């Protein structure tokens, strides 16, 4: 059997473990086995990817895996129970930054041969990666009351500023995708990367701390979109399946959480861009910050 066939078969099996894993994680008695099954699928996918013939040097790969796994293990074990919700936010930020870096590296190495479709998926991966990163880190910082006030920040003209940022991302993205080899392409890339960082911040500053877990859930599904776009960029079906599952299940979870909070979903999806009537939540529906919606 050819190596590439083996890789694709293992990818297929990994996709099955993710789907089964999600399914099992939705029931209290089987949640742990669901997590374990998807973990096994993830490790198997990493192992066969390491055998890919396109990998021509291993130093960065191995250093990255060893250092990342060691730090990840430590962070996972040392986080106190009360700080778990914000830690999920921070980790999600790391995932977003990783997707952004993959998109950037891909563009840096092969600006040619992307075509308009390639340019568009590269833009999507970079934008969603970048805004997931900044949004998640600010969400984490506000929940930890580090660097940022835990109070919601609102100012007049906020929606206008956020909408202008979004417009800038769209325009620079279209210019970028139209011709990824043009001399200005790199400048366009830098513009939408920075604007997406700002947009990520704009998405979370007006959210109150009690509602932040919902925003973290939504940001998690944005990182799924980034993973999915990276999958299109590298034409990797497993990334597309896993990213789409994370994105759509995250949106479905967000909608359910909104129902519990008595909030319109549009407040979380579009609250940064449209003035939203502030409906106060009754205190008994208002969970403490460390106490995730349940």
């Amino acid at each position, binding site marked *: 059997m050819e190596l590439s066939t083996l890789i694709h078969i293992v990818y297929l099996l990994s996709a099955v473990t993710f789907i089964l894993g999600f399914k099992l994680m939705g029931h209290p008695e089987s949640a742990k086995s669901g997590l374990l099954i998807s973990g096994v699928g993830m490790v198997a996918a990493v192992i066969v990817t390491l055998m890919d013939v396109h990998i021509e040097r291993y130093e*960065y790969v191995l250093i990255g895996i060893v250092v*990342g796994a060691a730090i990840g293990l430590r962070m996972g074990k040392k986080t106190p129970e009360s700080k778990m919700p914000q830690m999920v936010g921070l980790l999600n930020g790391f995932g977003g930054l990783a997707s952004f870096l*993959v998109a950037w590296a891909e563009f840096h190495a092969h600006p040619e041969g992307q075509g308009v479709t390639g340019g568009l998926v590269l833009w999507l991966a970079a934008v969603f990666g970048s805004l997931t990163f900044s949004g998640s880190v600010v969400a984490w910082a506000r929940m930890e009351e580090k660097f940022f006030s835990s109070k919601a920040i609102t100012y007049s003209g906020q929606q206008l500023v956020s909408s202008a940022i979004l417009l800038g991302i769209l325009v620079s993205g279209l210019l970028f995708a139209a011709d990824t080899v043009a001399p200005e392409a790199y400048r366009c890339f830098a513009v939408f990367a920075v604007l997406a960082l700002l947009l990520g911040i704009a998405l979370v500053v007006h959210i109150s701390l009690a509602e932040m877990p919902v925003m973290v859930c939504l940001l998690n599904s944005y990182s799924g979109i980034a993973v999915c776009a990276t999958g299109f960029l590298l034409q990797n079906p497993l990334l*597309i399946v896993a990213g789409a*599952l*994370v994105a759509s299940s995250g949106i479905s979870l967000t909608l359910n959480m909104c129902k519990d909070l008595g909030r319109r979903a549009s407040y979380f999806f579009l609250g940064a861009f449209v003035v939203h009537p502030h409906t106060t939540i009754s205190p008994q529906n208002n969970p403490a910050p460390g106490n995730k919606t349940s």
Partner: protein
Amino acid sequence: METTVLTFLLLILVLAIFLGFEIIARAPALLRAPLVSGSNSISGITVLGAILTAGLAKGVGNNDVAALLGGIAVALAAINGVAGFVLTDRMLDLFRGKDKN
């Protein structure tokens, strides 16, 4: 990108989106926090893309810088995946403890 490849990948995308919406639609509210954490851990799968980028051939074009960026991405995605897995596991232990008491 070839049109046939693109259509094929889009088909996978659409099916996976529908599946994602349905699969945890009836999950109890109690499990939402670990589900967010667990799916966050799965988004660490972006490590596959990072590995392929970090392994780009030496000395060709802009590959060296790109491979370094890929290496950093491998570490970040691995943190996301591993820490997310451990955290979710601990969260589920907490719930199990609560159920017994």
